[in-house]
């Protein structure tokens, strides 16, 4: 891996780590498919009760939305915040601070290697499944663009979760934050319910919050809405999350050194 930066090496190792455990990858993708089946059942029942259309989504648009949004969410390890918090609470992070590189940068790069591979695999499988069971998407360009959007959403999620996990520098524990985070993605991220189905005020606010950039944006693109501002919004939130993560870890590491951790 000569020539790569430490972060590039961490990313590549993350990819290789995921590839070296095909069982884990299969379990995750299997879980993703189960979730797709369950949520599809819910939305099929809801569409049946509403003459086949909900807030502008018909069956094809809604199912492609669900597939892309769920694929983006499959990437990050579900307990990233908790794991970051555990490492900080147990003091493991003190050892990582001995390296001449950014602790949070290296950790994010490593997580992303695994996460992005999962997103790509899930996306390809879901797209094939959707083509067979639901039919072609309303916009082929939108469906294709939803893959990079899902990868961006995944990157944003991993980065922002590190920023949140850093709370453990002060609380020594970030477990509940993980539960809370996942529900924010479920609801305000549009993972469980497209944001267009929320009451107007809440839905419009949710669309500009970071969680929407993680899941709603890829879903929206896959449903056929080719709005370039959606990707722009993701990039803005990614920049903010990166600054926050770096800042929280810098402050936290200084605190750890002050108390002699």
């Amino acid at each position, binding site marked *: 891996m000569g020539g790569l930066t430490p972060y590039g090496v961490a990313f590549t190792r993350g990819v290789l780590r995921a590839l070296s455990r095909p069982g884990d990858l299969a379990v995750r993708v299997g879980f993703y498919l189960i979730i797709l089946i369950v949520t599809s059942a819910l939305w099929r029942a809801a569409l049946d009760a509403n003459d086949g259309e909900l807030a502008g989504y018909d069956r094809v648009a809604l199912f492609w939305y669900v597939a892309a949004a769920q694929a983006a969410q499959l990437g990050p390890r579900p307990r990233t915040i908790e794991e970051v918090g555990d490492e900080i609470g147990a003091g493991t992070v003190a050892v990582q601070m001995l390296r001449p590189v950014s602790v949070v940068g290296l950790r994010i790069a490593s997580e992303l290697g695994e996460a992005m591979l999962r997103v790509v695999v899930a996306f390809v499988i879901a797209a094939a499944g959707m083509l067979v069971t639901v039919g072609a998407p309303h916009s082929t360009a939108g469906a294709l663009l939803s893959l990079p959007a899902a990868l961006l959403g995944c990157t944003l999620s991993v980065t922002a979760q590190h920023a949140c996990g850093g709370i453990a520098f002060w609380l020594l524990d970030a477990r*509940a934050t993980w539960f809370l985070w996942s529900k924010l993605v479920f609801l305000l991220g549009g993972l469980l319910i497209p944001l267009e189905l929320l009451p107007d005020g809440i839905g419009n606010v949710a669309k500009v919050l970071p969680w929407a950039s993680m899941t709603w944006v890829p879903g929206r693109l896959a449903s056929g809405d080719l709005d370039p501002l959606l990707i722009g919004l993701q990039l803005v939130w990614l920049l903010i999350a990166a600054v926050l993560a770096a800042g929280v870890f810098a402050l936290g590491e200084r605190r750890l050194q002050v108390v002699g951790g």
Partner: protein
Amino acid sequence: MRVARVFRLAVADALANRRSFYVQVIAMAINDLTWVIFWLLFFNAVGNVRGWNGDDVLVLFSILLTSAGIALGLLGNSRKLGQLVADGEIDAALALPLDPLAFLLARRVDTALLGDLAMGPLLFAYASDHTPESLAIYLGGVACASVVLVGFLVTISSLTLFFGGRGEQADLGFQAILIMASYPLDIFGGQVKLVLFTLIPAAFVTGLPTSLLRDFDPATALALLAAAIGFASLGVGLFRLGLRRYASGAVWTQA
């Protein structure tokens, strides 16, 4: 009772960091409210779906929260068992003069999930019809649901003893059963229902208890009881079988 003493220690551990304890419990209560809000928003946008409305789902959710509070909060290691095995951290339990599985389950209280344990009964008190019969069915249903949940998690965690890995299948199984148990059983078609009654037994966690509350049927109650016994036996059996293949991780401090 040695296991009871272990459990008392786990409770003391959970309460040791009071600030963290309260933050976790409150955060979980907010988390639960998020789900309640989701379902209210969903039924507001969609209307009744296959005979279910918002109040019905709140009762379902109260059962889920209470049973999750017991199975995942009071027996906090039930969802971490696969990870403990993967990291070789169960060695200390094997050397103790009590059942390793009982020790591991009782050893850790997950404070965050205690928020669920508090919210579940509150939600039931709000959404139920307030009759003694309903309360009895709720308590019985929650007891069976908790046993099914623990039995299922121990079962999938035990797979780490056979196939290795980092115990991620247990984490995903934990998420899968919670998510699936959050949905009304009636929205699913036949094939999915089959999965919910077998591979991921979410139907026994909320489906049947909620069905009993809506319309009590002795045969359904017996099926729920049988499922609880079945999954408990499967979990204990598979864990003990897997232990025969377990090689020490040489870690003695964190079981």
